């Protein structure tokens, strides 16, 4: 049978890992934005359908990262709420 202290420690460890995940997601988002700008500049004027598809993929990746970050924030909120009730 686990103690409250063990539960809190486990949740704290999970929260720490989520924080590290958030840091990596934010860094990925920044790097992706830079890459999008670079590629937009280099490929300006291209009407190639593969370029449009690739740029759409990058936009989708960016959106997914944003939604990932939002979901982690909600997860943290829920986990912290639970800890406060222990």
């Amino acid at each position, binding site marked *: 049978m*686990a103690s409250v202290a063990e*539960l809190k420690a*486990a*949740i704290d*460890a*999970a*929260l720490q*890992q*989520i924080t*590290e*995940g*958030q840091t*990596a*997601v934010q*860094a*990925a988002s920044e*790097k*992706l934005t830079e*890459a999008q700008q*670079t*590629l937009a500049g*280099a*490929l300006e004027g291209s009407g*190639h*359908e*593969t*370029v449009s*598809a*690739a740029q759409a*993929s*990058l936009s*989708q*990746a960016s959106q*997914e*990262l944003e*939604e*990932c*970050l939002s*979901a*982690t924030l*909600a*997860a*943290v*909120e*829920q*986990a912290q*709420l*639970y800890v406060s*009730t222990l």
Partner: protein
Amino acid sequence: MSIVEELGAQVRAAADELPVALVTEALDRLRQAADRLRWVRQESADPMGVPELSAATEHAETAGHTLRVAQDQFAAYLAAIGLAGDGPPAAGQPQRREPTDDQPTAGPGAVPEPRGEAGPVHRWWSVRVTELTGQRDSPEAKPDREITDAEDLLRRVAERVRADDRGQLHAQLRDVPADVGLGMAAVAPPMLRDLAAELLGHPPRAQDLPRLRGELTGKARDLLPGLPAEVLETALSRVCRMPPPKNPTAPPHPADPAVAAGVLTGLLLNRLGRDARSVAAQTLRESDG
């Protein structure tokens, strides 16, 4: 260095620097956190953020996959303008994992062949599709120039699923360029969830997983007899915002989640009595929303 070479170098460097490794790192952390929270949940009925964390993991997985698709698309573009396959990835960048059944010439750093030409990258995709559908390989098969985006492919796959024709499904999937096929893993999941919600009458949740299994698994296995069971289970779990099943074996082949998502979408459309044109309509609604 000519102007076109300079452009190619710029595009290649930017594509190689896409943050695939950072997304993988984020995914590892989020999975570890989810494992810990799931352990804690064994002691409590409170969800304590696990469903949200599962959703976050799913978004990170999709982001990572979409970045790899983009890298393939940029490589295809470079190949199309005559700059294929020169030079390794930029220094310090992780080499992309290539499927194990590639031809020997398609190791890390290789780029997709221009659309319309059969080459090693198309080959690994078509070989895997043949395995998944349990059909015979056709050496004379050539990539289909007509299909250039994953949504179009998804619509065509839905048509083949509706016709319950495994041979045609095989031919349709086999002939598309690998990057288009892989793109289904990005466009199908949001539709899958919407269609499942329509079938169930509410957003899919954990308790709906058995019903979705019952509705879809048998027919999916008929169409894709070579698909590992855990890939199907993972796809359905994600529709229900559930963590994927624990899988001690190797990660799935890159083609598997894409093909599974496409076929499941077709099965759900068929189950709801909707035709394949709904794919375009559904996507439009999502972009409006």
